[in-house]
């Protein structure tokens, strides 16, 4: 069976865990807990800290949902995570001091992967902090010559996360239709 993944990234507190929980068909598994089981047979070096969920498709295919570790600065893990990925969901926390700086950081860090696949951006916490607006994000992206979906998202709402991932799918292929 193929290993298709959708990667969720963003700064700490942006809602990656919550978003994956909203979509996952299984309770969220922290791979360090899995590793705890595995350490019975393997060494302790397998400890990692990332979120993992699964979307089960109708034909038995699984889409793996990975959230990058909260300590995003350890970029050596990202190459491993993005291998086999079909797209990136970038969640940004609108209540942080400089979400544009965060956005630039992640778009640069995942630049190669985004070029090969695509990205959709979800802006969380807009009910707490209304600025910058979604239009502001688009204007900022324009300076980077990037045109991607940017949506206001409540990571707790399955509908919001679903619409965001749908937009990612359509941006990868506008011609797709629901099977």
């Amino acid at each position, binding site marked *: 069976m193929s290993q298709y993944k959708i990667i969720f990234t963003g700064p700490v507190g942006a809602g990656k865990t919550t978003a994956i929980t909203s979509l996952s068909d299984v309770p969220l598994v922290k791979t360090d807990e899995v590793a705890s089981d595995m350490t019975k047979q393997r060494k*302790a070096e397998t400890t*990692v800290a990332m979120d993992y969920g699964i979307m089960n498709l109708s034909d038995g295919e699984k889409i793996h949902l990975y959230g990058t570790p909260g300590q995003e600065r350890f970029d050596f893990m990202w190459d491993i995570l993005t291998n086999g990925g079909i797209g990136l969901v970038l969640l940004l926390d609108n209540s942080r001091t*400089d979400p544009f700086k965060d956005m630039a950081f992640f778009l640069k860090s995942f630049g190669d992967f985004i070029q090969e696949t695509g990205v959709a951006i979800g802006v969380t916490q807009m009910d707490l902090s209304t600025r910058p607006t979604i239009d502001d994000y688009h204007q900022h992206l324009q*300076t980077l010559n990037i045109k991607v979906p940017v949506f206001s998202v409540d990571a707790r709402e399955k509908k919001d996360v679903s619409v965001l991932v749908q937009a990612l799918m*359509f941006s990868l*292929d506008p*011609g797709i239709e629901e099977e």
Partner: protein
Amino acid sequence: MNIKPTDLLPVSLYGMDGRTHKTMTFFLQGPCKGTAKIVDENDALVDIIDADAIDAKVILDHCLARKPLRPIIILSLETLKIENTIYVNKPAKTDEMLAAFKEAKNWLNGKKKKPAKPRKSKKVVQVDVEPEQEKVTPKKKSRKDNKKDDFELSTETKVYSNPLELKKTEKHKAAMLIDEQNFSSFIGIVPGIDFNDRKQWVKASYNPRQYYQGYVQSAIKVAYEKGQVIKLNSGWKPLTILPHSHELWLDADDKQLRAFAGVVVNSVQSGGAQTMSISAVNPKNESFSTELDKFQEINAFIWKLACWTSKGRYPSALNLSEPVYLKRWPNFTRLVITPHAMRISALLMTGPRTILDIIKVLQVKPQYVFVFVSAAYAAGILEQSKRQVDKVIATKEPEKKSKQKKSLFSRILRKLRG
């Protein structure tokens, strides 16, 4: 104390939450393998402090007071020079971390480096993304690359948030998805037009100025131009527009709005009488605070108003045979999503297309495309292309994905739509 180069340096971590602690463990066990191990505070010989933590100063004072001679490694986004500490810039790179451990070992072995003179800490220069940078595709950074990263995460301090905003529930409501089955009942029907007859498409247009939509759009334009709170008095329900917060206030539910949206208010038959007026208001004199759920985001309001006014028609200002282009993706999570709206958006983001072309390529009913362009045009994110080159150069067909990929994406869509 003599620490051998091969000894694992026992370190303790401070100022890191559970997940960061675990990731740091992975980092020390992985790329920094064989150098350090994480232990309890009492067993450690070196302290590692995340200086960007809220209580970092308290932690540092505690560490210095408890064990003045213990080396302290400071991790920070800001360049810091604090006496008796070893600074590592975030994002922490393997070689810098290893160098810090080496210095700490030397310190413990009596080869203590002369403490740096305390200097004013200076903020990391905030590097804006260069406008001329066309693509965010950096060369793959090697771990041996010592060049300082120009792109960094912002600090984590939360900005002040408005608690009232949480009560404006209508503004932050999730999207309403309208499928093909419910389209007509939701949008309404225009009598006298057979959308199955292509020849009748030409007359399937409408002029927003004859409806409430046109007046609302004009009032919004005035509010933004003047930077003033404006009230639109329509003889129906007053609408207050607050441009600074991109919201409006209306004491009417969607059912009432939908009913009024379809009423012609400015027709030739009525002698072109304009029954609406605008006036500047002082928001302090309005009773908004008691009815926060009646606030709506301006773009979302215009979008649905245009859908209900259009009823599957397109604005008369647009030509079906001239290309249109989309400036940006609509914020779909906060909008009414009509059938195939996301497909239409994705297609238009690949380049300008005529409305007729969109119908042909996506093989969808014209009403779905017409209502989409009506809403997007009203929201100001869709325009008719004026450039000659857009007419001459045919837009490339979207890159065809493999059947396998296409099928996978379709199945994912089906799953997401439940």
